[in-house]
C-alpha cells in the first residue's frame, strides 16, 4: 500500500472512523515509515489545536439577547400556526359536516335497501321447487305404477316424520276446538269448483 493510502487511514483514525483490524496495520507502518509518522503527528496536532476551539466568543448578555429574540419569534410562529389551524377548521368544517351527512344517508340507504332486493332475488338463486315438481309430474303422468310407488313412499315418509319428533298428542277438547277452526278455514279465495284433476 502506498503512503497516500496510509495517510488516508491516519485521517480516518483521528476521527475514530478507522475499521477495526486496520489499526494494527497502520501502527506497524508508522513504526517503519518516517514520512507517515511525521504526517500523523502533524495531523494530531492540528486536531488538538482545533477541537473545541472557539473562534468567536460572545458575552453572556449577547446570548441572553439572542435567546430572547428566538423566543419572541417562536411565540409568534406558534400563534400564527394556531390562527391558521382555526381558519382551516372553520373553512373545512361545513364541508366535512356535509360530507358526513351524505355518508350517513348513504350508509342508511345501503343498509336498508338490499333487504328487499335480497328477498326478491332469492327465488332466482334457489332452485325452484315448482320447476322440480313440474319435471317430476311429467314423468309420473305417464307411469301409473311409478306414481303409486312414489305416493306410497311419500305417505311412509310423512308418517315417519310425524312419529319421529315425539309429537305430543292433543286432547279431544283441543281436537274439537281445532276442528271448528278448520271448518271455518277460508277456501273461497280460490276457484275450487273448477279444479280438474286431469294432469
Amino acid at each position, binding site marked *: 500500500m502506498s503512503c497516500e493510502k496510509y*495517510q*488516508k487511514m*491516519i*485521517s*480516518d483514525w483521528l*476521527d*475514530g*472512523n478507522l475499521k477495526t483490524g486496520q489499526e494494527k496495520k497502520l501502527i506497524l507502518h508508522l513504526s517503519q515509515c*518516517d*514520512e507517515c*509518522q*511525521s*504526517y500523523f*503527528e*502533524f*495531523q494530531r*496536532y*492540528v*486536531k488538538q*489545536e*482545533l*477541537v*473545541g*476551539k*472557539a*473562534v*468567536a466568543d*460572545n458575552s453572556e448578555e449577547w*446570548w441572553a439577547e*439572542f*435567546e430572547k*429574540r*428566538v*423566543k419572541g*419569534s*417562536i*411565540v409568534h*410562529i*406558534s400563534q400564527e400556526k394556531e390562527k391558521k389551524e382555526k381558519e382551516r377548521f372553520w373553512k373545512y368544517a361545513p364541508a366535512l359536516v356535509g360530507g358526513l351527512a351524505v355518508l350517513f344517508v348513504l350508509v342508511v340507504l345501503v343498509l336498508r335497501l338490499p333487504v328487499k332486493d335480497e328477498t326478491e332475488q332469492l327465488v332466482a338463486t334457489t332452485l325452484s321447487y315448482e320447476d322440480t315438481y313440474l319435471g317430476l309430474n311429467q314423468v309420473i303422468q305417464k307411469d301409473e305404477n311409478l306414481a303409486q310407488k312414489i305416493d306410497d313412499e311419500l305417505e311412509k315418509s310423512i308418517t315417519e316424520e310425524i312419529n319421529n319428533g315425539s309429537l305430543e298428542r292433543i286432547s279431544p277438547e283441543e281436537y274439537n276446538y281445532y276442528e271448528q277452526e278448520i271448518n271455518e278455514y277460508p277456501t273461497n279465495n280460490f276457484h275450487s269448483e273448477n279444479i280438474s284433476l286431469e294432469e
Partner: protein
Amino acid sequence: MEDERQLVRRAKNGDLEAFMVLVKRYEKPIYQLIYRLAGNREDAADLTQETMLRAFKGLSEFREKASFHTWLHRIAVNLSLNFLKKNRLQRNQLEYLDQRINEDTGLSTDMMAETWPATEELKKKLDEALNELPLIYKATFSLVVFQGMSHREAAEALGCSEGTVSWRIHEVRKMLREKLKPFVNQGRGN
C-alpha cells in the same frame, strides 16, 4: 439534564420552554460552525437564529427516532451554504486542487520526523488555511473536527455519503499539511 428525546417530544407537542432548552444547548456550537463558514459575526448570528426558527417550524416533520443533534446541524449547514453561495464568490473544487498541486514546498524529507511546537504564527496560518477552503470542505471539516461528529453523522448532516466525508477530510488534511509545512519548520526551532 433532561433527556434530549423527551425535550424534543415536548417541543413537538407545543412546549415552547422545552424548545428553548434545546436552543440554549445548541446555540453556541451551531454559532461556531456557522461562523467558520460565514467568516463574520453578523451573518453567523442571523444564520444561527434562522437555524433555530427553521428547526422550530420543522418540528412536526422531525421523526423522534432520528438524532436532533444531526438534524439541527444539517439545517445549519444547508442554510449557511445556501446563504453563502448566494452572497459571495466561491472557490470551486478544481481551483482548490490545482492550487494545492502547484505549491512548491521545497522541504526535504529528513526534516519531518519531529514534534510540532505550537507558535502563534502557525496557529494564524492554520486559521487562514482553513478559511480559504471551499465551503463544502470547510463545512465537512468543521462538522467532524470542530463539532466532533463522526463521519456518518456528518454525512447525514451534509446529505452525502460517508465515503465522501472521509475523502473530503483527507483532502483538507493533506492541504493543511502542504500549506503549513513552511511554518512548521519555522516553529521547529531548537
